[in-house]
């Protein structure tokens, strides 16, 4: 007999000063020991819902809360967040901001200390939880020296030390590379086997939802669909219409007209063979050779690195002998684990970093002889977090910043800004306050403000992080359009499906060295090598690899199926 641990009835919440409700009549029962994943587009109310569980709403965020919410017999409205922390653990997306101690042990000790546990008990909980998440060897290290994945594991351990009955995680893996993600999710799988713990996780990436008991899809503060994981994840159309990424494998089978939809690569291979389908190898070969021919046309090198080395503080070599060419008109992805040197590499292209040894040339001239200011006109760099650059009161002013610094006449500035905003799909938003825009809107303002300098080369650092599936798509479609109009694009990313669908060529970084390079298809065909660089192709690519060809996304494979009219 399932026993509800969280009961929510007709829950409504409005943030103060916002008319549109963030939660608009949520009814939800979560059972003890259950693992529930919540998915939905940006601003759907996922984080808001999570914040009501440990009473951050209404204690921390101001607004109007209506309806009933009951967690383990407690009415959260009458509890402080600290009181709730005994039963509800909360892990946030931003692991940088949630860790604050100077060593790993003390981070875990903080929770039990607040509940005045005895020293021996605190020690026991530190041992138990560090062991549980596999950070035993790092007890004395300052959290700031850990990798992203380790930081998030530590955040989980520090919350588990309070022995919560419910663990709520708000996009815990968004900022992590694929294998660190796996590491965090392995812990989650271990956790969900414990029947003393109920898990509620907000997740963007559908592949990670596979292990849940149930999945809930949320939009505009309402639950659109909730049900067993398989049932929800195979409902490809609903997911796509909500702006949640559907899994490639069930999508493919659905388009092929199958009725029983497999979810994982292994299931997919079995189902594929059972159906007796075949890939048209002539069509596949034609596709591959066309792709090669198109890339072979790109011959004019814009950026060249020769034995590039870079070390921080003359000690740690962040880059160790990188040689590469990036050609005019290319669209290149740089991928690799957190700390593999990909951002350090990209920052050499516009002169933010200068090589410790070796050389980087842009247009044939060493970056050392050009400097950031001059290079900025050729090489635009969009930083990961738009909030690290936006400062103006209007979108127009923000985008005009760069051309004005370069002493362009006011009339020309107007034209440039209009063009740049047009290119990012923000035409007509000139007078808006950039801070009032959504994350994806601010990201676009950031891209526009770089485009306004009319660079030939555009570097984007994690352009899709923090955006939902639909926003990621429209961001990348926009970038692709820029590429088609002649810009050379370099993007650094963790999102493998973005690489699969949008990059022409891929550079894989590992430990400061170039580990693999080639066309996207070539690189993704090397699944095993990728694994050693802490990367993993999307499920769909894995599935097609197992069948003998490398297809990057479902539509591509559909075109090459034998006996199928397109």
């Amino acid at each position, binding site marked *: 007999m399932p026993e509800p641990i969280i009961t929510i009835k007709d829950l409504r919440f409005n943030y103060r000063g916002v008319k549109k409700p963030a939660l608009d009549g949520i009814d939800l029962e979560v059972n003890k020991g259950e693992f529930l994943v919540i998915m939905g587009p940006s601003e759907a109310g996922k984080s808001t819902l999570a914040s009501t569980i440990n009473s951050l709403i209404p204690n921390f965020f101001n607004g109007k809360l209506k309806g009933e919410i009951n967690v383990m017999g407690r009415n959260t409205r009458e509890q402080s967040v600290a009181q709730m922390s005994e039963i509800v653990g909360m892990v*946030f997306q931003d692991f940088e901001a949630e860790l604050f101690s100077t060593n790993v042990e003390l981070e875990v000790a903080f929770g039990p200390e607040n509940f005045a546990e005895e020293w021996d008990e605190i020690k026991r909980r530190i041992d138990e939880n560090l062991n549980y998440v596999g950070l035993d060897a790092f007890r004395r290290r300052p959290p700031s020296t850990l990798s992203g994945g380790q930081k998030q594991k530590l955040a989980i351990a520090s919350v588990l030390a309070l022995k919560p009955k419910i663990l709520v995680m708000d996009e815990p893996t968004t900022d992590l590379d694929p294998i660190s993600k796996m590491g965090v999710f392995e812990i989650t799988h271990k956790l969900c086997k414990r029947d003393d713990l109920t898990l509620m996780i907000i997740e963007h990436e559908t592949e990670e939802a596979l292990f849940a008991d149930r999945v809930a899809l949320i939009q505009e503060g309402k639950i659109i669909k909730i049900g067993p994981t398989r049932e929800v994840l195979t409902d490809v159309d609903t997911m796509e219409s909500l702006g949640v990424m559907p899994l490639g494998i069930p999508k493919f089978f659905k388009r092929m007209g199958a009725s029983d939809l497999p979810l994982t690569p292994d299931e997919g291979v079995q189902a594929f063979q059972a159906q007796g389908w075949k890939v048209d190898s002539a069509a596949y070969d034609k596709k591959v050779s066309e792709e090669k021919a198109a890339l072979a046309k790109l011959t004019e090198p814009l950026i060249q690195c020769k034995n590039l080395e870079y070390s921080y503080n003359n000690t740690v070599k962040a880059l160790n002998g990188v040689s590469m060419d990036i050609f005019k008109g290319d669209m290149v992805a740089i991928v690799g684990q957190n700390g593999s040197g990909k951002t350090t590499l990209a920052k050499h292209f516009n002169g933010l970093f200068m090589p410790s040894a070796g050389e980087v040339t842009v247009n044939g001239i060493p970056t050392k002889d050009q400097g950031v200011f001059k290079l900025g006109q050729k090489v635009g760099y969009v930083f990961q977090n738009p909030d690290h*650059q936006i400062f103006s009161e209007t979108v127009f002013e923000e985008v005009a910043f*760069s051309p004005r610094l370069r002493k362009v006449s006011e009339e020309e500035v107007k034209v440039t800004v209009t063009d740049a905003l047009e290119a990012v799909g923000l035409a007509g938003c000139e007078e808006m306050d950039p801070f009032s825009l959504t994350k994806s809107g601010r990201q676009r303002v950031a891209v526009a403000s770089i485009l306004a300098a009319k660079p030939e080369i555009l570097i984007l650092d994690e352009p899709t992080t923090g955006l939902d599936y639909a926003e990621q798509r429209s961001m990348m479609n926009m970038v692709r359009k820029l590429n088609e109009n002649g810009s050379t694009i370099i993007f650094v990313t963790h999102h493998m499906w973005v690489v699969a669908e949008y990059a022409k060529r891929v550079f894989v970084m590992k430990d400061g060295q170039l580990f693999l390079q080639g066309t996207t298809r070539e690189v993704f065909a090397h699944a095993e090598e990728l694994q050693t660089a802490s990367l993993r192709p999307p499920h769909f690519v894995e599935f097609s690899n197992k069948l003998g060809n490398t297809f990057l996304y479902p539509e591509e494979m559909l075109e090459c199926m034998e006996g199928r009219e397109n």
Partner: protein
Amino acid sequence: MDAELYLDNNSFIHRLDPRTKIIIFLLSFVAILLFQNPVWMLPVAFLIFLELYVSKAFKNIYRIRVLLIILSLFSLILWNFFARGQTHWFLFLYKESFLYSIARTLLMVLMISAGVVLISTTRNEELVLGLIKLGVPYRVGFAISTALRLVPTIASSTVTISQAQRSRGLDLDSGNLIARIKKFLPLLVPVFISTIRSTNIFAMALESKGFGARENRTNYLRLKMQKSDYIVLGLVIVFVIASVTLSIMGYGKLTGLKNF
């Protein structure tokens, strides 16, 4: 990026009890403030520099060198406006006022150095615990440590933000003073906003881990005063008492100095 203030060196001073270090820090303020004559400040200066040397904390002084040099230059000049003496050199400069400004500058540099020693050798948690054991309320101690904790956060976001703006063509190194100050706006706004944002998450994380859930809290860190603590404290106290006595006896004054 490495922006931590605490230096993990495990020196003799690192191993001292935080209470010892806090008391030394406070006592050195007393010793610094006693004398007007810079020559008489040299013994304290020597001791503080010895601490810096032993704890290898010069690295942190080096980090703030630009700030220290600017402050020192201003201080060396400005204090002359607030004092007069008998031996007139030129303009507003007197021998006495100049010595006095040296002493004031030294005072400032030494106070900062004493603070740097404390912060570079004491973990945040140790500092809080030391303060609590010395009678400071937990919340006050925690507030102090939170302020210190913000320094590396702000420093590293400032680095990222200045890179982002330099990529857009912002050139911080040219133009006159006013032009340069104006150029800091594109840095300040994002630093301010991102700091507020991360402080917000920090506050949520704190409460979600039960901050303030119980009237009392326990501490996993255990402090123990050791023999070396008592010896060091004893020596420092003797030094300060001697300084106070000498100062009461009238040593270390600048004769003929009139300050206002």
